[in-house]
């Protein structure tokens, strides 16, 4: 026994080589998953992940850890369902406890139109083979007795959709698990290595300039979440994305009281209880463009008003910490996982407020796109070109406030 000292390192921290077969820019969950699946599924070994700060220090560590696949449209549903299926075997695959807990997600409706939308979405889910059901207020009350389902509420609870296979996972474990598994397959993880330029020769990408020197590669995947357009600017690519601050907060730890995830698009709040006991509460984005990793008080106030209305028992709970992350939001609330007009340069971005749930699926299709230089059928619809063709995948309803 060494009393929690002398733990083994989970990944090496090598010096950058002069060139790699593939480089992933961004060491969050999505980037590390991309590197892992490039090595595991596509047999590549000479891969680097470059990260400006430390692994999983951006949105991977800042989200509210909800995983679900109950989207409306076929393209989005198939992508998120692929991710959910990978989640279901991820702890075994990575040999790392991701603490994935399928405790279900409840999306509450507060008006007749909410309920029509919920019925439509659940039907669409079931046609796509995704589990889902519609609950009435009595069933909700039975599952979550602490929720105020009285008709006297300003926005009464009229029903909910429920996806039993959805749930939560441990956010840090995703970054560390993918990093360790990728490292074992030979992937070089380079932290404190900020990309400051993208090198091209004609229409072919040939490398990146970083704070740790120039690194050559003819295959570069940019998976940098909130900073996607900063990287795109370096390559002269315009993206339909705007970065916004998105906040979350956690309470002091409580004894177990809420055993599922409750979210409401209409009154704009969602809450779950972590295994540690704290209530994990998400707020909406600030409406203005922002790269500051913090949010504004009016948004927190708005969210907590809704939480207190829905869960009167939480009114006297004290909040412990509040923070913000930067999310890159696309006009149709769907991601871009795409080749670009520059050969060998790929972008995986625009996950907006709900990227965590897709982490393994995002990496899986991005790895396929980079290895084959063609999108997988699962992400073929999520190209940059859809903003030219007009084939948008409008998931504002299912993305909503839900993350």
């Amino acid at each position: 026994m060494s009393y929690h000292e002398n733990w083994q390192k989970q990944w090496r921290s090598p010096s950058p080589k002069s060139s790699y077969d593939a480089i992933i820019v961004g060491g969050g969950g999505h980037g590390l998953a991309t590197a892992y699946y490039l090595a595991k599924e596509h047999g590549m070994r000479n891969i680097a992940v470059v990260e400006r700060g430390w692994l999983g220090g951006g949105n991977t560590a800042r989200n509210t850890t909800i995983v679900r696949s109950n989207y409306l449209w076929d393209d989005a549903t198939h992508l998120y369902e692929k991710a959910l299926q990978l989640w279901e075997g991820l702890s075994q695959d990575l040999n790392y406890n991701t603490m994935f807990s399928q405790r279900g997600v409840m999306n509450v409706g507060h008006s007749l139109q909410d309920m029509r939308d919920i019925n439509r979405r659940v039907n669409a889910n079931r046609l796509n083979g995704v589990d889902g059901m519609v609950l009435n207020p009595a069933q909700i009350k039975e599952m979550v007795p602490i929720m105020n389902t009285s008709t006297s509420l300003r926005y009464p609870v009229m029903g909910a959709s429920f996806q039993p296979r959805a749930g939560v996972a441990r956010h840090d474990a995703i970054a560390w698990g993918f990093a360790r598994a990728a490292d074992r397959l030979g992937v070089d993880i380079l932290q404190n290595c900020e990309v400051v330029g993208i090198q091209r020769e004609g229409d072919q990408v040939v490398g990146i300039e970083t704070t740790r020197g120039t690194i050559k590669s003819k295959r570069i995947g940019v998976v940098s979440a909130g900073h996607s357009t900063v990287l795109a600017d370096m390559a002269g690519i315009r993206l339909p994305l705007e970065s916004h601050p998105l906040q979350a907060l956690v309470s002091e730890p409580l004894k177990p009281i809420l055993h599922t995830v409750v979210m409401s698009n209409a009154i704009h709040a969602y809450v779950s209880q972590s295994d540690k006991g704290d209530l994990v509460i998400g707020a909406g984005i600030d409406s203005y463009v922002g790269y500051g990793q913090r949010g504004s008080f009016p948004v927190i106030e708005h969210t907590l008003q809704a939480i207190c209305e829905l869960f009167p028992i939480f009114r006297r709970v004290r909040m412990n910490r509040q923070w913000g992350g930067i999310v890159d939001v696309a006009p149709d609330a769907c991601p871009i996982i795409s080749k670009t007009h520059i050969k060998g340069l790929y972008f995986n971005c625009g996950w907006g407020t709900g990227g965590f749930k897709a982490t393994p699926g995002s990496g899986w299709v991005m790895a396929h796109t980079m290895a084959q230089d063609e999108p997988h059928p699962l992400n073929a619809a999520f190209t940059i070109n859809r903003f030219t063709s007009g084939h948008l995948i409008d998931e504002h309803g299912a993305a909503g406030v839900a993350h």
Partner: protein
Amino acid sequence: MVRPAWPTNSTFMLKITCPWCGPRAESEFSCGGEAHIARPLDTDALTDEQWGDYLFMRKNPKGLHREQWLHSQGCRRWFNAERHTVSYVFSKIYKPGENPDTPASSGGAV
């Protein structure tokens, strides 16, 4: 890059100076996104790429950003502002039609 100072009056609530009503709390305003995106004049001649660019592509700078604001809980009038997207400090506030690059209209900053 050098991180600019945080807003001075308050760390978490912006104070925005409406060019008609003066300084008010952030919660009175709505942000209308990037400013000065002109609708193309000859729309019949636009290619799909040009339409996509006009409709969807945005600058999203990490730095100074010119954007539209609406004093929705006040005079309900639109104005433009230049704001830093890391510090959130407003450097210029100007009325529609005014040129922010002329010295006379750079007042009202917080």
